[in-house]
């Protein structure tokens, strides 16, 4: 997998490069701001761009804006946004319309190397990786309304993991249950929340996010 990294902290840039190289991926460029990121993607056409949100010059949301441009101009390059804090609003912007090949994770998640590399692969393959913190923020906006009250605790857990972009087998592994049980929960959820049924994981994420949005 060919990867471009945009991260203004030299320490973290070097760390990510080494971590991904160890995992067998090729970091074709590692840059320090959004302009250089767009140039590098233009030149290398990578499978994945890993982008920090706060970068020079204003240190606010450069990374989000760069990621949105990448998604519009380079659909072949998946985008994984990393941030010190995750914000539900940035996630909504990032996922608007299309949840394929996009991820938004806390920087802390890098520390769990295996999970992080797995998320990179998932996003590069056209999947979704949404941080559990973002999902809980989205759910918090929705939980003052009633439909969630009709869910069992198990179903809520499945809903959250589904929104993170996980597949049924990954959800089963995370919850330590069989895949059959997960399928049953998912089916119940789609019925209870009246979601459009879709087998592809990333389109399932979109359905869940749209539903959460509608609950505001």
């Amino acid at each position, binding site marked *: 997998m060919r990867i471009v990294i945009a991260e203004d902290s030299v320490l973290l840039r070097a760390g990510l490069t080494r971590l991904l190289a160890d995992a067998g991926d090729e970091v074709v460029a590692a840059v320090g701001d959004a302009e250089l990121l767009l140039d590098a993607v233009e030149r290398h056409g990578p499978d994945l761009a890993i982008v920090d949100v706060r970068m020079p010059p204003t240190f*606010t949301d450069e990374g989000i804006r760069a990621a949105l441009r990448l998604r519009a101009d380079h659909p072949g390059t998946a985008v994984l946004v990393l941030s010190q804090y995750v914000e539900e609003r940035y996630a909504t912007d990032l996922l608007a319309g299309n949840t394929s090949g996009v991820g938004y994770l*806390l920087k802390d998640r890098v520390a769990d190397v295996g999970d992080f590399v797995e998320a990179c692969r998932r996003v590069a393959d056209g999947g979704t990786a949404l941080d559990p913190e973002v999902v809980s923020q989205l759910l*918090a906006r929705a939980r*003052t309304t009633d439909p969630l009250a009709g869910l069992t605790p198990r179903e809520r857990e499945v809903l959250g993991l589904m929104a993170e972009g996980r597949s049924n087998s990954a959800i089963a592994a995370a919850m330590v249950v069989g895949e059959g049980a997960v399928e049953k929960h998912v089916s119940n959820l789609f019925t209870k929340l009246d979601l459009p049924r879709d087998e592809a994981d990333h389109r399932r994420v979109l359905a869940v996010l749209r539903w959460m949005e509608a609950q505001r």
Partner: protein
Amino acid sequence: MQPVLALLAPWRSLRVVRRLGYVSLDPFVAMVAFPIIAALAGVTIGMASSIILLPAAVGTAWLASVTARGFGRVERSRAAALLDVAVADPHPPLHGSWWQRLLQRFTTASRWKELLYFGVHLITSSIAFSLVISLWSGSIALLVLPLVRPALPADTARFWLFDITTTPGALGAAAVGAVGVVVAAPWATVAISSLLGRLVRGLLGPGAEVAYEAQVQQLQASRSAAVDAAEAERRRIERDLHDGAQQRLVALAMDLGMAQERFDSDPEGARALVAEAHQEAKAALGELRDLVRGFQPAILGDRGLDAALSPVIARLPLPVHLDVRVDHRPPAAVESAAYFIAVEALTNVAKHAQATRATVTIESAGGRLAIAVTDDGRGGADPQRGTGLAGLQERVQGLGGRFQLVSPAGGPTSLFVELPCAS
């Protein structure tokens, strides 16, 4: 209909009657006050030129001051009762020994202004009285003209356009008189008495410097509150860092150090220590993130209150409904204050209210930002107890805003804050 009613405005709640009472009484008060005060002042000046009589001059000067003060009280309460002009007592309290107090009497601007008031009062009150009373009596005289006409001499007599010796002429003059009584005289009374009210306010009330003084005191109080708050905040950060991330980093370094020692002799033990260090590092990251985010979330400046408060309510243990209706982004300082007020209020709800749900509404209207935080908890919140609410209140007052807390025992609790948006 509306313009006609507007013409009759002075009659509303019989305002004009009280005003008339004020103007009619005014010269009589002046006729009592002026001679006494003027005589005392004159005698004082006369005696002050002689060294021997100087002590007596001090005595009469004191008497003049006390007298003026007494009449000043009368005038202020008369203005409050009849003109609806509330004028605060402007004199700073006297203090110290008897001669200090005496000295203060003659070094206070407000006391000299009081003397000046009684110096001009006789003239102003007389002018006002003659104008108002002649207008009223003239109007009334015209109004009753048709009734008294038979008693008048039969000679031709004219008033303006009307020959008042004829019945139609007298009725015309009476119509003018009626307009005078119903509209002109009341308006003149209100206008002239308002001028008198201004004189009272200007010479018997606290001057601009007193208002400034109060403002300065309030600013000093809010500034020292802000300094205290910053100091407390710094201590809290220091404590959080010391107790949290710093300790975790120590443990992490210790684990890694021990793992390094054991790599050769005990690879399994080393592996466990590294795993432990990994956990410590992640926990330290989480604590630092929470701490740093609390300062000022970047997204607040970037996307506004709704986006910034969203993660806050996600971390609370109770469901919170957030509703932000703001057309134009308020100035950064106001937005930041609103954010911290909402966060602090919600923290209080989560800590103390035992509520099952809460609502945050933020609205901008008329150059103000209104924040309402309500919960269905047990109530009984009181800014006098506990520092959180008192700090909030100070913060709001420091910004020139309004703070209202409604929290009966048994709940529910509502906090309303209004912040001015002018930058």
